Structure formats: structure tokens, C-alpha cells
């Protein structure tokens, strides 16, 4: 039985490692400036944890094979000095590894979440609601109209609660159900939720950020390829969560300007 367990453990370890090496289920191609750094960090983490995983599983299999119960009535051997020193050493080593990985990864993380936004970034206001996203561009005046929650009315397409009757800065705001952006341009999203927690996830951008009701959360990225990709909600937000999505369309600068003009209110 000990032999069988050792063999099964070895086979599972080798197959699961092979799945990663062959990149059977891998990330979609990256389309963002930050993606390269994130992928690099992800690969480092995978290698560090992967090597340890393989070594520890194979050593475990070896020990099981060698020191299995052979049914000959020999006394059970214990590790010299008992198990306590081993557990302490293992905990310290694994803890140190996780700490190092976190510290190294912080550089990439802070590049996304702690760096100051590019002053030239295109600002897009994002509203998440059950069960859709809406995106708002400030229009030619460069100023977003003030949001009045009491004026939010999906029926008349006033998703942001704008007051164009009294607020001239709201009159030129462009509202869209797709996130249309120009390529190679820094984008700064200001994310807020109308109701419950939602998420903004575009795997190709390597970015995932929650919406938290009551908070305006900035998120910046730059897309490097002209593609159309899906934006999905990854926080269970209610009965229509499965269908909460929008599309990210990365266009050339000319196409984007034309799109803005075509969608002007």
C-alpha cells in the first residue's frame, strides 16, 4: 500500500507540473504596459513555489517508499530529536519564502496601485450596477458633470444621475456601455458602485479591481494593442452576476476621436 501511495504521489506531481510546463491552461496574451512586469513576477513566483512543490512531493514519495510499513513488525522509527525542530524549521522557511515573494512582488503591485496617475491620462468614470457597467467621458470641456444620486434613472438612460438642466458641465459628458479607449494612452478609471460590491477584471490587461460601494477607486493602465476584450464582474453581486459584463475596445487615436464625436450627446 505504501509503494502504491508513493507511486500515485509521484505521478500526480509529475502530471500537474507537466500541465504548467506545457502551458495547457495559461494566461491570455498580455495587452498592457504593466502586463510584462506582472507576468514576470508571476513566473518568478511560479518557479520558486513550483520547484519547492516538486522537490517536497518527490522527497515525500521517496520517504514513503523507503520507510513504509513492510509488515515485518519492526518498530516505528522517529526522526532524531523529534518532530518539533522540523516543524519549526519548515514554518520559518516557508514563512520567509512567502515574505520574500510578497516584498519582491510589492514593486509591481505598487506600480499599479500606488504610483501617481499620469497627468495626461484619459479620465474615464466607471459606474458598476446590478448588472452592468457604464462608462463616462468628460466631453470637450474636460470636466465631468456632477453626479446627483437622486437623479439616477436607468429608464431615461441617466445612469450617472447627471443634471444637464442646471449643470452645463454635464451636457457634453459622453456615456457608453463599452469602455472605448485609445491605444498606448494612459487611462485613469475612477470606479464607483451604485449598489453592491462588483469587480472590474480584464485578464488581458492583467488587472482586477473591486468596486466598493461608497468609495471612488482609481485604477490606471495603458493598453498596447488594438483589440476588443471582455470586462467581467468577478464579485458575486446578485442573480444577474453571470451576465454582468461589458466590452473593452482599444482603438487608434483617430478612431477614438471619431467615436467620441459620434457618441456626443
Amino acid at each position, binding site marked *: 500500500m505504501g509503494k502504491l501511495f508513493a507511486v500515485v504521489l509521484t505521478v500526480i506531481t509529475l502530471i500537474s507540473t507537466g500541465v504548467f510546463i506545457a502551458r495547457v491552461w495559461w494566461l491570455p496574451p498580455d495587452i498592457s504596459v504593466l502586463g510584462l512586469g506582472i507576468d514576470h513576477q508571476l513566473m518568478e513566483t511560479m518557479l520558486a513555489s513550483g520547484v519547492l512543490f516538486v522537490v517536497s512531493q518527490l522527497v515525500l514519495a521517496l520517504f514513503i517508499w523507503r520507510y513504509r510499513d513492510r509488515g515485518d513488525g519492526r518498530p516505528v522509527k522517529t526522526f532524531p530529536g523529534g518532530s518539533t525542530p522540523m516543524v519549526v524549521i519548515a514554518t520559518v522557511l516557508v514563512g520567509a519564502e512567502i515574505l520574500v515573494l510578497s516584498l519582491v512582488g510589492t514593486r509591481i503591485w505598487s506600480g499599479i496601485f500606488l504610483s501617481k496617475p499620469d497627468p495626461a491620462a484619459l479620465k474615464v468614470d466607471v459606474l458598476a*450596477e*446590478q*448588472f*452592468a457597467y457604464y462608462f463616462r467621458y468628460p466631453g470637450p470641456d474636460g470636466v465631468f458633470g456632477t453626479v446627483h444620486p437622486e437623479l439616477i434613472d*436607468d429608464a431615461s438612460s441617466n445612469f450617472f444621475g447627471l*443634471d444637464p438642466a442646471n449643470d452645463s458641465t454635464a451636457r457634453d459628458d459622453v456615456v*457608453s*456601455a463599452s469602455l472605448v479607449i485609445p491605444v498606448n494612452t494612459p487611462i485613469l478609471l475612477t470606479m464607483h458602485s451604485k449598489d453592491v460590491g462588483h469587480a472590474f477584471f480584464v485578464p488581458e490587461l492583467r488587472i482586477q479591481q473591486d468596486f466598493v460601494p461608497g468609495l471612488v477607486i482609481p485604477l490606471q493602465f495603458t493598453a498596447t494593442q488594438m483589440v476588443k476584450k471582455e470586462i467581467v464582474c468577478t464579485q458575486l453581486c446578485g*442573480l*444577474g452576476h453571470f451576465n454582468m459584463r461589458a466590452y473593452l475596445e482599444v482603438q487608434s487615436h483617430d478612431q477614438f476621436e471619431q467615436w467620441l464625436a459620434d457618441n456626443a450627446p
Partner: protein
Amino acid sequence: MRSRFALSLTLLALTASLTGALAGPGGNAGSVSGTVTFTGTPPKMRPIDMSKEPSCAAQHATPLMNETIVSGPGNTVQNAVVYISAGDQPSAAPTQTVRYDQKGCEYLPHVLVMHAGQPLEIYNDDQTSHNIHPLARTNPEWNKSQPPGSPAIKATYAQPEFIPVKCNIHPWMHGYFVVLNTTHGVATGNDGKFSIAGLPPGKYTVTAWHEKFGTLSQEIEITGSSAATANFAFKALPY
């Protein structure tokens, strides 16, 4: 779907005429007709962005426009409901079922007129799930999911009420259930015209309701089988 709606309206009108004819003394029954229009400049209706639901977007050759205000030539108002709000005799709920469709991520009709207690059936004709959420206040509120191909949702509303209807999965979908306690109520078509027949002699209040413009009322008097006229002009503001 529109033809079904037209048919149900015709049947409703026929029922109304019959009821009126039977109720009216000596078969004398009058009618009231008119046109609903607006004055001023209404808000500009924008195309609805259905990009999150490609199967619905594909069903509209040109993008569906926001239906809060739908008007025809001469500033006529579609989807206004004109009904007898006072002076009418109590009427029993028709047994005929009224039908409400979700097609191309649009509610058809946009405004559904029914009698309190009248059976209602709601269909999903799309390849996507909808959740139908009538925001009733007087009547019990409910919110039901309806995946594609599922059977009709059956409901009735016992109390008269103007009920906004929405789909949370497709936030642009919006309509109204107008539950009346009279059979004398119709929704206007694109020409803004309405006609209510089968009114026994008497004094009535005719009310025109519109989801954006509000309500307007007029007093009319029917003598014998006279045909009264009641035109309504809502004031529109650009914002």
C-alpha cells in the same frame, strides 16, 4: 408582437363597447376621442447601447432609441394612457389574457394597459435570460428570473396602479404595467390618437398619463350617444 398588442387592444375596446352597450340605458352609449400631443422641446432620445448583449443588439437593424418619449409627426405622443378616471361604472375584470413580451431586450408593448384582476402572461422571446421586476408599491412586488425557452410567467394585479417594470440584467429595459379599475382605458399609438367607446350618458373625468410628462385631466359629459372630444397637450422641457 405589436400585432398581438393591437389585437388585444381591439378586443379590449370591443369588450368595452359591449359592456358599455349593455350598461347604457336603451343601448345609448357615447364615446370620447382625441389626440395626445406635446408642446415645447422634449429631451433628445438617445440610442440604447446594447453592446453587453450582442444577441439582442443583432435584432435591431438600427439601434433602438430610448422609449421614454416616443412621438410621431405633429408632436403626437405615443405610449400615453388615456382612461376614465372618475364617473365610470364598476366593471368586472376581463377574462382574456394580456400578453407582455421581452424581445430584442425590449418590452413589447412599452406600456401595457390591463384591468385589475385581469390575467397577465409574460414571455421571454430572447436567447438570453431576463429578470422581470415590476416595481409595484400598492400591489405585491416580485422579481422573477426567466431564462430563454422557459414558460410564460403568469400574474395578476388586484389593485389599480401604474407599475414601472425593469430588467436588472439589462438596465436599459424599461416599461410600464398600467393597471386600471376600468375597461375604459387605452394606450396611444404613434399618431397620439385614442378613442374610448361604450360610455353611458353621464359626467366623466378623462385622464391622460405619460411616464415622463405626468398627467392631465378633463371633464366631459356624454349625453345619449354623443361623441365627445378631449385633446391633451403636455408641456415638454428639454431636460
